[in-house]
Structures are given as C-alpha cells and as structure tokens.
C-alpha cells in the first residue's frame, strides 16, 4: 500500500502491472484518475446520445421518432447519467490525478478504498442503463424522482434506487479519501492557506457530498418502502406528504449543483493565473467565498419549490437566502477578472475554455437570480427557461471547466502536447454549438414552452430547430475531443516539458515534476521543501 513513500522502495521499483489486471487491481492515484476520466468520457457520450434523441424528436412539433413514454425515459436517464456518470466522475478523476501532486503527497491516503470507490461506478451505471430493457422501460419521472409519479413505474424503480445508492456510496468513499488526504498528507510547510484553490474547492465539495448524499439515500429508501412495504411517507392517503420528498430531494439537490460547480471554480482558478502570468488575485477571499457558497448551498433548497404552495414567509426566506449566493459568487468572478487585469494574457486552449466558462457561467448565474424571485418563478418554473439556466451553469460552467482542465493537465499526464489547432477548433465549435443550442431555449421558455414534453405548439418551431442544430454541432464536436485526447495519449505530438506552460512553475508544485509524472513517487528527486517555500 503506497500510503507513505519511504518504507517500501524496493517493492515499488517496477512500473504498472501488465494488461487488464492493472486497471482492476490498481491502487495508484494516477491510474484511478485515468479510470474515472475514461468512464466519464464514455458516459458523456452515452448521455449525449440520449440528449440527441431528445433534440431530434423536438426538431419538429408533433410526434415523429419516439413515443412520449420513451421520450420521458430519455430525459430522466440523460440527466442522471450526465450528473452522476459524467460530470461528477470527471471531477473525481481530476482530484485523483492532481490533489496528491499539488500537496506533495505520494498517493491518496486510502488507496484500496480509492480502487473501490471507482469500481462501484461501472456497476451502478450498467444497472441504471439496464433498466431501459426491463418491463415498462426505465423510470420516466425526471431526475428529481418525485412521487407519486415515480412510484408508478414497474421493475425499473428498485434497480434505479439501488443504482442511486451505489452512486452515493461511491461519492462518499471518494470524498472521505479526499478529505483524509488533504488533512493528513500535505507536505511539511504546505499550510492549508497555501494550498492551491483546486484542492480547497474539492475539500469543501467533499464535505458537501458527505453531508447530502446520505439524505438522498434516505429519501430514495423511503420511496422503496412506500412502493414495496406499504408505508406512506409520501402518500397523503396514508397520512404522508409528497412535498416532504421534494424537501428531502432538494436538500440534496441544491448542494449537488454546487458539488458540480465548486471543483469547476477550482480548475478555473488554477488556469486563469497561469495564462495571465500573475498570481491569483485575492486568494484568501476566494477560499472564504467558496466556504460561504458551501454553507449557503444548504439553506436555499426550497427555491426549487416556489410553486408548490409553501407559506409566504417560507417563500420570502428562500428567495432572499438564494439571492445572497450572488454575493460570494460575485467575489469570485471579480477576482478572476482582477487576476487577468493587466496580465500578459495568452489564449491557449485551456484559457479559451476557462474564459468560455466565465462568460457562460455568469450568464447562467444571472438567469438564476431572475428565477430566485419567487413571484417571477411562478412563471419560469417548469418551462424551458429553467432548462436554459441549468445548462448554462452545468454545461457552460461545469463541462467547459472539465474541458479546460483536460487540456491544461493532459500534457502533464501524458508527456505529449495535444494538437493546439484542433484544440482551438474544438473550443470554438463547442462554444458556438452550445450557445446555438441553449440560448434560444430562454426565449422558448419565456414564450411558454413547458419542459419534459415531446410535442409543442407550432409557434415554437423555429427556435427549437435552432436548438436542435446546435445540439448536433455540440454533440459531434465531442468526437473531435475524443480524437484529440486519443492522439495525445498515443504520444503523437510535441514532447511536453515539465513546466508545460511558460512560467507555470511558480503556479503550483505539480509543474516542478517531469511530464509525464513518474508512475510511483511523483516527487522522486524533487526538493519539495524548496518547491513549497517557493510557492
């Protein structure tokens, strides 16, 4: 077990094990990072294919390609797969690859548990996808799993719930590992406040995960009981209350959106300083803002339930509390802009994606503030405006940050530069495709088009067609990404230096290491004390 480097020099002289067994039995943080990222990429394509089915059906009013029940299965599985299968595992992959080298640790603190947290995922994903082929198909309630609707689905329900439990366990184990690693394995001299933003944002994310995943697990367990054991937690006829489920779900669900966006903040906070050739502006306030966002994310959940008939004081409370989040978020955006201010900027692919993130995320934040107004949300709720909002934050924010991090660290991982021309092409096609896809949805929503419906009134046709064309551009552009990554991993391209990006050494420990980093003992031969002191 590679917890501590010193005691087992001899047994670790070898490289990775050969063949498939390497991947199944690995306890190496780099291998596990690669597994997470590969899995995320596959799920991204699977979830993306489902999205394209949705957009193909919505290209015209009326029903053409799929029946409505299948359409609703697609919206449900698309969301669950993207959130739990693509975006979260991608960030876990970055955490595994980068947290140990960023803090001067030899590996994650609990390497065997690390292996397990990953290998739960493929089983959960297969289980979830397999429900499509069961009697009655997958559940079609939307990813929010609201009863009583969700209780009406057949064989798929218990399997979906089991899958959600597995996904939750995997996240909790990974979070425990990240917290223990950060608390116990930092190199001497690397104090908490000196730690890079990416580690900070993941630390706070890990706490969010540990605090909310069990609540989701509890909520879906109660669904299971209502369905199979005649309880009535959520059944008014038996003295229960379906709205209770909504409270439980969103107590998980709102922190969940920050679980996705905080690591994205972290990645962008690493990239912008490097390509501005300046240190991050106001790092302490960044850390503080992240913690405040983490805290606030626990006390705003019912802004998803403005239309459910809460008492007016509750509506007011959740409205004001939600608006508060704009303050620490504004601090972050200000700091990123101030970091770029008078920097010597260059615009390599990672920086382009980081700037794409900034523009799109801020846009999504603005529509969020619009919806946080309870009276206005009575109108926005459950129409396409919401769909546009959360895709600007989740895809424009989350996924663009994943792209940014991928291009930023790929040379460090592989020792080979990716193809810069293709990288830029991928950025621009993604950026334009994304906006063509989701910008029109704001107007569809404002004009009254409801979400999660396979048919629509004819006056919505043009904007839906724009959106669908954008979807296919964005979707197929990701095949280009697969090709770029494949080429880079194969070693086709310029050799990358240890520093990779001009001046990066002064932006983090990891850039003091060779590219690729040695399989074991990333820091062999590096004077870590000096590197920490230079930070």
């Amino acid at each position, binding site marked *: 077990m590679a*917890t*501590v*480097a*010193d*005691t087992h020099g001899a047994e670790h002289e070898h490289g990775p094990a050969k063949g498939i067994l390497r991947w199944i039995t690995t306890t190496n943080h780099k291998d596990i990072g690669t597994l997470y990222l590969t899995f995320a990429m596959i799920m991204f394509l699977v979830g993306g294919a489902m999205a394209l089915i949705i957009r193909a059906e919505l290209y015209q009013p009326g029903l053409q390609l799929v029946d409505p029940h299948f359409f609703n299965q697609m919206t449900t599985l698309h969301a669950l797969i993207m959130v739990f299968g693509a975006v979260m595992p991608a960030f876990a992959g970055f955490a595994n690859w980068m947290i140990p080298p960023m803090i*001067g*640790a*030899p590996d994650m*603190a*609990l390497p065997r*548990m690390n292996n397990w947290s990953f290998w739960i995922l493929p089983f959960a994903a297969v289980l979830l996808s397999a429900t499509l082929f069961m009697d009655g198909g997958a559940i079609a309630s939307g990813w929010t799993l609201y009863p009583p609707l969700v209780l009406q689905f057949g064989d798929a329900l218990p399997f979906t719930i089991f899958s959600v439990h597995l996904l939750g366990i995997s996240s*909790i184990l990974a*979070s*425990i*590992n990240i*917290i*223990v690693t950060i*608390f*116990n*394995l*930092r*190199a*001497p001299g690397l104090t908490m406040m000196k730690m890079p933003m990416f580690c900070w944002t993941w630390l706070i994310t890990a706490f969010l995960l*540990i*605090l909310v*995943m*069990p*609540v989701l*697990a*509890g*909520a879906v*367990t*109660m669904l299971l009981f209502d369905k199979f054991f005649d309880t009535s*937690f959520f059944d008014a006829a038996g003295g229960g*209350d379906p709205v*209770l489920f909504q*409270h*439980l779900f969103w*107590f998980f669900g709102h922190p969940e959106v920050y679980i996705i966006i905080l690591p994205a903040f972290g990645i962008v906070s690493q990239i912008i300083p490097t390509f501005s050739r300046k240190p991050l502006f106001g790092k302490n306030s960044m850390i503080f803002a992240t913690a405040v966002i983490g805290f606030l994310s626990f006390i705003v959940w019912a802004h998803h339930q403005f239309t459910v008939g809460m008492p007016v004081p509750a509506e007011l409370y959740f409205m004001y509390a939600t608006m508060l989040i704009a303050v620490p978020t504004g601090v972050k955006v200000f700091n990123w802009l101030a970091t770029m201010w008078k920097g010597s900027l260059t615009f390599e692919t990672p920086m382009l994606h980081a700037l794409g993130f900034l523009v799109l995320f801020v846009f999504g934040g603005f529509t969020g503030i619009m919806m946080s107004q309870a009276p206005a949300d009575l109108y926005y709720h459950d129409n396409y405006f919401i769909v546009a909002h959360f895709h600007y934050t989740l895809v424009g924010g989350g996924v663009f940050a994943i792209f940014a991090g991928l291009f930023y660290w790929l040379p460090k991982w592989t020792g080979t530069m990716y193809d810069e021309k293709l990288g830029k092409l991928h950025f621009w096609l993604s950026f334009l495709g994304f906006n063509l896809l989701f910008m029109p949805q704001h107007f569809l929503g404002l004009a009254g088009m409801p979400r999660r419906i396979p048919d629509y009134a004819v006056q919505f046709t043009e904007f839906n067609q724009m959106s669908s064309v954008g979807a296919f551009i964005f979707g197929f552009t990701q095949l280009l990404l697969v090709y770029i990554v494949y080429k880079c991993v194969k070693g086709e391209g310029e050799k990358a230096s240890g520093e990779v990006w001009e001046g990066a050494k002064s932006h983090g420990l990891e850039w003091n290491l060779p590219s690729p980093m040695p399989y074991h*003992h*990333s*820091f*062999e*031969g*590096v*004077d*870590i*004390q000096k590197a920490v002191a230079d930070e």
Partner: protein
Amino acid sequence: MTAVSPRPAGGASFEMEEKRLRKKNLYLAVGLGLIALLLYVLALLNVFEWVLGR
C-alpha cells in the same frame, strides 16, 4: 528518505510514524463515514418533517 514523506517533522522512527499516520487516516475516515451514516438515519427518522414543523 525521499522528499515526499508526509510525516510531520521530528521524533519517532519512521516505522512508528507510518503506523501513527495510518491510524490517523483510519480514524478520520471512520469518523467521516459515521457522520454520513448518522445523516442517513436522521433522514429516515424524518427529522425534516420535524424541522419543517409539519
């Protein structure tokens, strides 16, 4: 000793340090796991209903 040793400065032989570190890791991990378990139980006990005053 390679530069990566995460052990804190001073004292005990390395063997001891590694044991201590593993113990520290284990306690923290188990503690966090228990917090997760506690929240699961609280959710099942419908603490929410009580908090929301329903």
